[in-house]
């Protein structure tokens, strides 16, 4: 049965509530809905530190990465030279040029990284951000979905469109990428190929949906297997930053972030049931 986690303001609390629910459900659950109402609210330091501590321990047979590394697979924050400018339809030419250049540099930097990134076996099939900025994502020269969505959202902003729902129902497949006519609505970000038949491993994130409503961009992401300890927090952080980037580049406000994990895993087999319980206790600690 699906589980609707009580929405939280910040990603730390949303993650922790999700983990607690799935642990209470026995360690696994299907169709778990996690909602962050204000994704750019600062993280909770106690919760983050508790998780960082767990992820700093090497574990045999399990690839554990820092939260920032996981987050970077969705939005490579460390290579984004943020100008702190925000798009407005009437912004000056110079400011717009700087804002555009910061995005262009981000894409260029990431495409520079792709040949090296794909030498890691975990990235043999590409990376999430690679798929977003150069679909299908293993090399440069592909479709830059992110730039395309920003262009469309800016067009909507200039036309003062922000009070109607522009949600899409994009599912696995490439056909929607061909939708480039000016009259078409902003679509989701394709991160999953319809012909992808892998049963495990990348990609766990299969779709990112963007919805413009009341001048806010909201994100809905679908994971087919959400590893709640190893990956989920970093995933939420990366998606939050992606949303922040889209809002900055389009001038719309930040809406909510919703993640649907079709299968949520508390990873008792990786960290032991006691280990996950201890993690929750540390994250809930008030000291």
């Amino acid at each position, binding site marked *: 049965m699906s589980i609707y986690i009580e929405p939280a303001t910040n990603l730390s609390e949303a993650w922790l509530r999700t983990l607690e629910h799935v642990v209470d459900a026995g360690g696994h659950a299907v169709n778990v809905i996690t909602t962050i109402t204000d994704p750019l609210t600062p993280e909770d330091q106690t919760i983050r530190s508790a998780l960082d501590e767990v992820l700093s321990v090497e574990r045999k047979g399990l690839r554990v990465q820092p939260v*920032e590394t996981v987050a970077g697979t969705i939005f490579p924050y460390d290579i984004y030279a*943020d100008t702190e400018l925000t798009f407005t339809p009437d912004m000056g030419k110079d400011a717009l040029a700087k804002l555009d*250049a910061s995005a262009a540099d981000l894409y260029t930097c990431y495409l520079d990284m792709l040949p090296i990134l794909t030498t890691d076996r975990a990235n043999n099939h590409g990376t999430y951000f690679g798929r977003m900025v150069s679909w299908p994502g293993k090399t440069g020269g592909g479709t830059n979905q992110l730039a395309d969505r920003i262009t469309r959202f800016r067009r909507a902003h200039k036309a003062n469109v922000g009070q109607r729902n522009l949600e899409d129902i994009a599912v696995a497949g490439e056909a929607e990428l061909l939708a480039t006519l000016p009259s078409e609505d902003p679509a989701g970000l394709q991160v999953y190929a319809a012909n992808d038949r892998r049963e495990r491993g990348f990609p766990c994130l299969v779709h990112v949906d963007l919805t413009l409503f009341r001048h806010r961009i*909201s994100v809905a992401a679908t994971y087919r297997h959400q590893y709640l300890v190893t990956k989920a927090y970093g995933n939420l952080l990366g998606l939050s930053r992606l949303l922040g980037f889209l809002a900055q580049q389009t001038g719309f406000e930040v809406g909510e972030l919703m993640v649907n994990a079709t299968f949520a895993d508390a990873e008792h087999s990786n960290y032991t049931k006691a280990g996950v319980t201890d993690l929750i206790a540390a994250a809930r600690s008030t000291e």
Partner: protein
Amino acid sequence: MTSDVGIGVKPGGGSFFPQSVSAVSSIPAPHVAQPTQPNLTLAQRVALVSGLSRPALRAADATAISSTLLSLWAAMTNRPVNELASGEMHQDGTVRISSQVAVWLIGRISEAYGRHKLVNLSRVKEIESLRSLGGLTGLLSAAISADAEGTLV
């Protein structure tokens, strides 16, 4: 069911990327409100970095490679070298970098050196070498030396 997105939420805008609160890392956030070279593109900033040729990299010692890496990092972020150099230190005593930055630097050095992939990430035994300037310098120095000796795989 009615969506309440946008209701009761404070206006956004301004700084979209608040500092991470991680206790593990406080790598400087890449904000460049006052960029070092505001009118140059990334490619132009990178082109100004010295030491980016195969002969120069082969002749460079660890100090020179480290300096080149720092300059490249500054070009990428459009921030001053000394600001990055005075950032958080790794436990190896050199400046801490993120693995994303390390990967980009490897890519740039590989391109300058003329070898598509100087470093294969799957063969990096010590992951911490991707998290410090000193570690990355050692990794690239070893790769360039191995290439010169014909033993790089």
